[in-house]
């Protein structure tokens, strides 16, 4: 019998070894069309990669630029704070002697009249500031920072206009008891009249902040636009947010896979998942914000009536080992899910009365046995359970880059947001009938690019804290599967809620 079986193998093999047939021409037409489409998709993917790269570079550039500006401002603030007497330019003589140029850390400055307090005893030694930086900062930013500083401190603050060499003295007035700072009182002192000591400040006229501002702006030749820009400023914020997500997928296919896709759609459905993480944002001007951060997210889908194949490797039959192993495989739209389960799961398998059992080790011989008559020592080879439920989740680390444009800039802000999210697969979770199993899905794309679109609300709740709420829709630009005939694009909808801390 075996000889005849091998004969039939040889017969078919011999007759079919050179079997050829000409396919219809339309096959090539389809191939050419698909190659063209894929070329376009590759170009699009390349575009997204370049866009993501450029976005990251741009974000880093903006952060670097703003960081530098911020450092410079702080630097000037430091200069302002620690120069109770002017130390630069041609006005040295006007405010103290040249020996005062680098004020020692523990130097005490004589108290000034009119409530103006001396510099505290311990002052950090000055770090020389490059002239060009001082020039850059001698603008609206410098003025505003100095004024802010004056508000916080109880000692005189001097900044220098390097273009003219003039000094500007900013100071806070303190009540007679010396404890409670009054609202800022700015004193403008042209260089020619800067006193050697603060004694003479008693004779100076105190001007209103509005007057001082007008004088300062004039002194620094600050153009109106720069003034406006300074008013607007830049704000950094840091926060956290998370969202419940409804996630599912769309499938794009050609007609030959339409039936397969219909079947997937019939049994598969979306699931609730979640996403959350930390965000950092910088707002430039009143309306535009760039936001990035790092998130963890879960996407997934549910499948009912999943046909799960349990393959039992009956080791005892083939190699004398009494232990057996089970593996499972399930097919869904994203591909073939493969995993291992053990005998201890206690899972009931829907058995057909007619099971195929191997009875002879290493022999191709097989027979049909009634399940009831099957000897218990013989292991079942393959079983299919057709009514399991499957939940499949993909876990990602996400790096978003979002642009937000504020439409309403009131106490209750409202904005549009959109951008690109780079999404890196870090794990998969598979549940069969709600039991987690150790399984993987074949051929899943690990780096993905998503488009994100949302409508954001922001409401300040306490000082620098603001509550944020943003319904957001996200869609995978690239397919996550590598199937030949169809492409799976997950998407999700979630309401992100969180807090921002402004600094």
């Amino acid at each position: 019998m075996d000889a005849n079986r091998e004969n039939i193998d040889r017969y078919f093999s011999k007759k079919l070894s050179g079997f050829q047939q000409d396919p219809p021409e339309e096959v090539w037409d389809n191939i050419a069309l698909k190659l063209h489409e894929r070329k376009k998709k590759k170009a699009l993917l390349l575009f997204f990669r370049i866009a993501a790269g450029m976005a990251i570079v741009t974000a880093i550039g903006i952060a670097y630029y703003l960081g530098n500006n911020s450092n410079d401002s702080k630097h000037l603030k430091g200069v302002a704070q620690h120069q109770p007497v002017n130390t630069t330019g041609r006005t040295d003589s006007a405010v103290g002697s040249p020996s005062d140029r680098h004020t020692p850390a523990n130097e005490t400055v004589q108290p000034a009249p009119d409530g103006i307090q001396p510099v505290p005893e311990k002052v950090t030694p000055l770090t020389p500031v490059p002239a060009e930086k001082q020039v850059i900062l001698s603008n609206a930013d410098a003025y505003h920072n100095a004024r802010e500083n004056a508000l916080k401190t109880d000692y005189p603050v001097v900044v220098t206009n390097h273009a003219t060499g003039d000094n500007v003295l900013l100071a806070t007035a303190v009540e007679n008891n010396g404890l409670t700072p009054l609202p800022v009182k700015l004193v403008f002192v042209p260089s020619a009249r800067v006193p050697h000591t603060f004694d003479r400040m008693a004779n100076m006229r105190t001007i209103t902040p509005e007057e001082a501002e007008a004088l300062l702006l004039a002194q620094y030749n600050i153009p109106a636009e720069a003034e406006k820009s300074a008013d607007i400023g830049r704000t950094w914020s840091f926060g956290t947010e998370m969202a419940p997500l409804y996630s599912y997928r769309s499938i794009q296919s050609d007609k030959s896979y339409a039936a397969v896709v219909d079947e997937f759609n019939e049994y598969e459905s979306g699931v609730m998942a979640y996403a959350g993480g930390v965000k950092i944002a910088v707002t430039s001007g009143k309306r535009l914000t760039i936001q990035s951060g790092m998130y963890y997210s879960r996407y997934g889908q549910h499948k009912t009536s999943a046909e799960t194949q349990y393959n039992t490797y009956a080791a005892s039959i083939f190699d004398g080992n009494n232990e057996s192993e089970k593996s499972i495989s399930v097919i869904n739209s994203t591909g073939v899910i493969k995993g291992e389960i053990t005998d201890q799961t206690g899972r009931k398998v829907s058995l057909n009365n007619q099971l195929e059992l191997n009875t002879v080790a290493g022999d191709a011989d097989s027979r049909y046995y009634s399940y009831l008559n099957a000897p218990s020592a013989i292991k079942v080879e393959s079983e299919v359970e057709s009514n399991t439920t499957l939940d499949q989740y993909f876990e990602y680390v996400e790096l978003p880059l979002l642009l937000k444009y504020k439409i309403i800039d009131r106490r209750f802000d409202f904005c549009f947001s959109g951008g690109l999210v780079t999404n890196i697969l870090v794990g998969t979770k598979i549940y069969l009938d709600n039991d987690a199993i150790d399984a993987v899905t074949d051929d899943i794309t690990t780096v993905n690019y998503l488009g994100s679109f949302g409508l954001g609300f922001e409401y300040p709740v306490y000082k620098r804290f603001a509550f944020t709420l943003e319904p957001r829709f996200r869609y995978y630009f690239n397919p996550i599967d590598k199937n030949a005939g169809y492409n799976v694009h997950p998407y999700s909808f979630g309401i992100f809620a969180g807090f921002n801390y402004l600094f």
Partner: protein
Amino acid sequence: MSLHHVYLVDQLHKVVRGCQENDPLAQRELYDMFKVKMYGICLRYAGNRDDAQDILQDGFIKVFEKIQQFGFKGAFEGWIRKVMVNTALERYRLHYKQVGIDEMKETGNQDDGQIIADIDAAELVRMIGELSHQYRVVFNLYALEGYSHKEIGEMLQISEGTSKSNLSRARAILQEKVNKYYLKSVQTY
């Protein structure tokens, strides 16, 4: 190796290099060189012409996408053939594997009949095409491609025992079909 053979190999390699550079003319030339052989393979794995054409189409797209990986170290025909077989298996897994136990409902007598009929290759392909999906795939892989049961088990995610029993059933069914065909042709004449 004859000069003519060397020439053909050289020509083939030029076409492959063209495909590696995504040259559309080279792609068409490669398709023309292998389409009849590969379509023959596809027909063996598919149950019908439509499926065979889909496999051929998907297989060639894979060939063009993965052709960068061909390093000119082995025979190109073997490489492209493997891509086609893998495409057929992928399609089988996706479309038909879950019929599972249904495969076993198909019956056939295990006659010891002698193979004496000289049957046309296309007719044999038709007979293979009438097998159930899993039997057809296992028979192709074992009897015509030369894979072992262990390899088949890994490729189809089934056990070796299942592969063996599927092969056995496929052989029996084909034997019966061949015998019937032979008897019918004898009666006709």
